[in-house]
């Protein structure tokens, strides 16, 4: 099984500062970590490999410093690492990032499974995983909370939904994004750390991936960030109490009031 795990390096803090002029993240002076959801992706890849054998490659688009994130993945047991690093990639939104990663993955050759975290904690979009699958034109299962079965050419996953979960069977190759319920990521091992220090990083630049220049970086990014803000907190709503008859009557009255109020505006 050839598994590719996409990881992102993110700032290690919940209160990230935002540059008020550009509306982008200010990363200076903040420690970097592997996006926590990607840790579950790495762990799931390791568990699948332990069962079926094969190879795991981690791929990351980012600056040279993202090297540290890749090496941490190797210290956990990942086999190979690829850094997609080029000035041409700078300023990518989720669209351009998905495209670039998909091109990079194509360059790596045959694969059976791509695993991403459900979202990155700095952007919270949950778009890059699905974007890669769309660009590569392969099936995707998002919010996976369990790998039920996985074989040479098919896999069955449990996908988390708001009400419960769905069981989805898909041919391979495919892409999944995973949620934190799926596993508990392991710590690095000593032998892994020693290997991670010496292991080579493959670097891919814009030239290496046969990309259309117009689709990369800022130029290839249709998203414009107008404003970043915290949405207002949802209020708790109103809970009606009493026996069934009473509650139904109260509800009907409340609904009537709402209809009247709506009619007035």
């Amino acid at each position, binding site marked *: 099984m050839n598994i590719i795990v996409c990881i992102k390096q993110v700032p290690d803090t919940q209160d990230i500062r935002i540059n008020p002029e550009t509306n982008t993240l200010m990363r200076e002076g903040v420690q970097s970590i592997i996006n926590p959801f990607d840790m579950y992706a790495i762990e799931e890849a390791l568990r699948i490999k332990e069962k079926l054998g094969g190879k795991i490659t981690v791929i990351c688009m980012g600056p040279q410093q993202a090297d540290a994130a890749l090496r941490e993945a190797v210290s956990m047991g990942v086999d190979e690492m690829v850094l997609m690093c080029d000035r041409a990639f700078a300023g990518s939104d989720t669209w351009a990032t998905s495209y670039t990663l998909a091109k990079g993955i194509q360059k790596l050759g045959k694969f059976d499974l791509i695993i991403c975290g459900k979202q990155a904690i700095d952007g919270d979009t949950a778009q890059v995983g699905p974007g890669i699958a769309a660009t590569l034109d392969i099936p995707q299962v998002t919010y996976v909370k369990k790998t039920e079965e996985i074989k040479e050419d098919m896999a069955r996953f449990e996908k988390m939904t708001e009400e419960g979960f769905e069981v989805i069977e898909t041919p391979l190759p495919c892409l999944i994004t995973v949620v934190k319920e799926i596993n508990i990521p392991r*710590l*690095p*091992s*000593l032998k*892994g750390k*020693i290997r991670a220090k010496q292991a080579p990083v493959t670097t891919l630049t814009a030239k290496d991936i046969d990309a259309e220049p117009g689709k990369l970086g800022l130029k290839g990014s249709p998203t414009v960030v107008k404003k970043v803000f915290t949405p207002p907190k949802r209020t708790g709503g109103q809970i009606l109490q009493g026996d069934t008859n009473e509650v139904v009557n109260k509800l009907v009255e409340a609904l009537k009031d709402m209809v009247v109020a709506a009619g007035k505006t």
Partner: protein
Amino acid sequence: MMDYLLTEQQIMVRDLARKIAKEKIAPVAAEHDEKETFPWDIMKVMAESDLCGVYIEEKYGGLGGGAMELCLVTEELSRACGGIAICFAATALGTYPIILFGNDEQKQKYLPDIASGKKLAAFALTEAGAGSDAGAIATTARKEGDYYVLNGVKQWITNGGEAEVYSVIAMTDREKGARGASFFIVEKGTHGFDFGKKEKKLGIRASATRELVFNECKVHKDNLLGREGMGFIVAMKTFDKSRPGVAAQAVGIAQGALDHAVKYSRERKQFGKTISSFQGLQFMIADMATQIEAARALTYAVARMVDSGARDVSKESAMVKLFASDTAMKVTTDAIQVLGGYGYMRDYPVEKYMRDAKITQIYEGTNQIQRNIIALEVLKEQLRK
């Protein structure tokens, strides 16, 4: 921070142990203490992280380090829980006789599983009538053809019942006195080898302490370590190498207690100020930190001396065990003092450090026995001059 000129690999070992202590051990330390449960959860993490074999040769699946690596790991784990740390360190104590006196077959057979963390080990010397006076052991090993038949009861054996591999000393020839003891490797499950009840203890309550009961227990002669009659030499050489490990446990416990005390002192307000602003308290903290650093420096120095292959390290390893354990006792008592009444309460983590520290003054030779060793060596040196 003092720079102890650790190698890159030693820093890696220390940092990984620190991460495990912080992320995995600290959250469960109080529960294992309270319920006196064996920390198999943490032993599994240790195994997966390759830390179990840091002091074992690469040839046998270890990292190829020595006493220094053993100390770094033990110290970091102890900072979160001295009881959990000793499950690791007592395995090292039980493994050293094999490392030091095992032949290649014995090493091939036992070390890889210990290095990988698949098996724990234990060291069995103490008996009801033989504590400080090791020469008084009554367990016997009678030769019968290709086997030795063991009879007797070992007491207070750390990892007893949990470990798979036991290094056990027994008298093979009572007539010969100190030259009549021999060391054996005995595997759990051997016919005639059973365990007594688990002891209830003041501290290090995550660790298991049990009796080993040998009743006509047949052990193959291939499991004899070194030669017949070398038993006490094996024990003494093992202690020489392992005592820095007890010192490291003590340093870690002391450091953990200080960490909590300092943090608390900056939060607790009395007389309208944080208590850390009172000089009376600052002086205590200064003394605690200084004593810990001195103990750590001595621990690393002796561990390095051991790893350098120095022939005789009895005096130094006795000194470090003595000094670090007395330091731990003093620092942990003072840490409670810094927390005042809160320090005395089990809801706060500091009283546990004091309970855990106490054992370091007792096992692997009480501190009185360490002083005996040191004095003897110092006086001998004078004679040689």
